[in-house]
């Protein structure tokens, strides 16, 4: 498609539950990025993919966070055993290249952990 699609728009989970977020990049874009935006607005880079391969995972909290981009499927970001501090808006972005092209952002998924 012509836009990055993210589902669901809103997700509410009790502390300790699992959360799974999905992202469909723009057709033809090889790179997918996940960002976490907490309430004070700061963006934190989590992970990026080149097609189905992890490109950069330096921002990923390894303990409870995992992500995948499988062929012919939306990319996913999964949080096991959610904590209150995981409450944030999670953005997915896609681009043709990691460095020199605009990243197109999806509308975000708002995760609320109660």
């Amino acid at each position, binding site marked *: 498609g012509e836009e990055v699609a993210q589902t669901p728009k809103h997700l509410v989970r009790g502390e300790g539950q699992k959360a799974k977020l999905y992202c469909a990049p723009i057709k033809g874009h090889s790179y997918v*990025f996940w*960002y976490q*935006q907490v309430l004070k*607005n*700061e*963006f934190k*880079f989590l992970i*990026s993919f080149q097609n189905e391969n992890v490109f*950069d995972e330096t921002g990923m909290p390894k303990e409870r966070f995992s992500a995948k981009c499988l062929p012919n499927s939306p990319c996913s970001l999964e949080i096991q055993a959610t904590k209150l501090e995981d409450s944030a*808006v999670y*953005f997915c*972005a896609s681009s043709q290249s*990691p*460095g*020199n092209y*605009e*990243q197109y*952002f999806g*509308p*975000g998924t*708002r995760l609320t952990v109660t």
Partner: protein
Amino acid sequence: AQTVTQSQPEMSVQEAETVTLSCTYDTSENNYYLFWYKQPPSRQMILVIRQEAYKQQNATENRFSVNFQKAAKSFSLKISDSQLGDTAMYFCAFIYDKVIFGPGTSLSVIP
């Protein structure tokens, strides 16, 4: 490691006036890209303007222009003829192999 600083957490401007948002960054790289993104209350991230580091000419996009000073590692955004729809968070972003965002500046346009 690259860092991006926006020293103005909040700014306001009267409608139709001009406002400048500041951004500085730190990097040892030579070829990189800089962007300004706008995030209105809807939370959608919208690209405002792009600057390639190898280009000396400052980028311009309608009412938006930048003052790019590579040696000083400065990348400010000027908004001319401010409109109510310009009210939003503005993020400066440095891109080399991933995006590093600044902390954002909240801009309010006052009627």
